[in-house]
């Protein structure tokens, strides 16, 4: 129940972040929104693991945190230099 409430709170905050991601006047607002969406994904996966009583989902959440930044890095490199190579 506790984990369910926490997951509900995280999902509602994900909806609020999504508003900024879609409305955001500049592309940087969108990028920041999607980045925090990734962080919420990590927490949600951990919480889902506890809701379904499979706490080893926590490892998967850790790996998610590791691959979360790839898109952001590529995006920033494109904005800085105009190309990726």
């Amino acid at each position: 129940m506790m984990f369910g409430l926490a997951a509900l709170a995280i999902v509602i905050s994900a909806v609020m972040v999504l508003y900024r991601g879609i409305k955001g006047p500049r592309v940087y607002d969108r990028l920041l929104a999607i980045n925090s969406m990734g962080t919420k994904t990590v927490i949600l996966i951990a919480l889902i693991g506890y809701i379904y009583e499979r706490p080893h989902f926590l490892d998967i959440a850790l790996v998610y945190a590791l691959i979360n930044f790839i898109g952001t890095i590529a995006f920033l490199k494109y904005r800085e230099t105009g190309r990726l190579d």
Partner: protein
Amino acid sequence: MINVIEIIYLFILVVCSVAAVRMKDLLSATVVLGAYSLIMAIIWMDLNAVDVAFTEASVGAGITTVLIIAALSRTKRGESVPDVGEQRRTRKARRFKKFVLFIVTLCTFGVLVYGTMDLPDFGDPDAPARHHVADRYIEKAHEEVNVENFVTAVLASYRGYDTLGETTVIFTAGLAIMVLLRREKS
């Protein structure tokens, strides 16, 4: 509780995809598609398909974003908008085209829904997909292949040639992308 959360995920998914289609700035659309992949990964996780969720997060949110940005760096960032006179001339044709596309999409949707009607229930243990060859894999995989994980045994041994073909396809696709995105040394 978990049902409410699932409904909110699916709502976010629909909003993300509609927003990505409607955006004129292609870079923003790419970023929103990244969010779509993250939510999709949570849904796979929720369905207990952990390896699929992994693939979705690394390929959908990671590699696809990088590849689309690489393609954008070789093309233009915005969609081209035709000038006013041309817009007025093509408006009628475009409305007709949209109508035809709507009808086609509706028909496809109907056929797909019709196709799901006689499928077994979600998670049904007596579904044919769970008894065709799965029983043999579960009973014999350990002594025949001597690998602890069934999924690994199926992918790497029972369907080894299939996996080899898939690897060839992915290798060819990687080569093609490298050739397309290569920068000429001048």
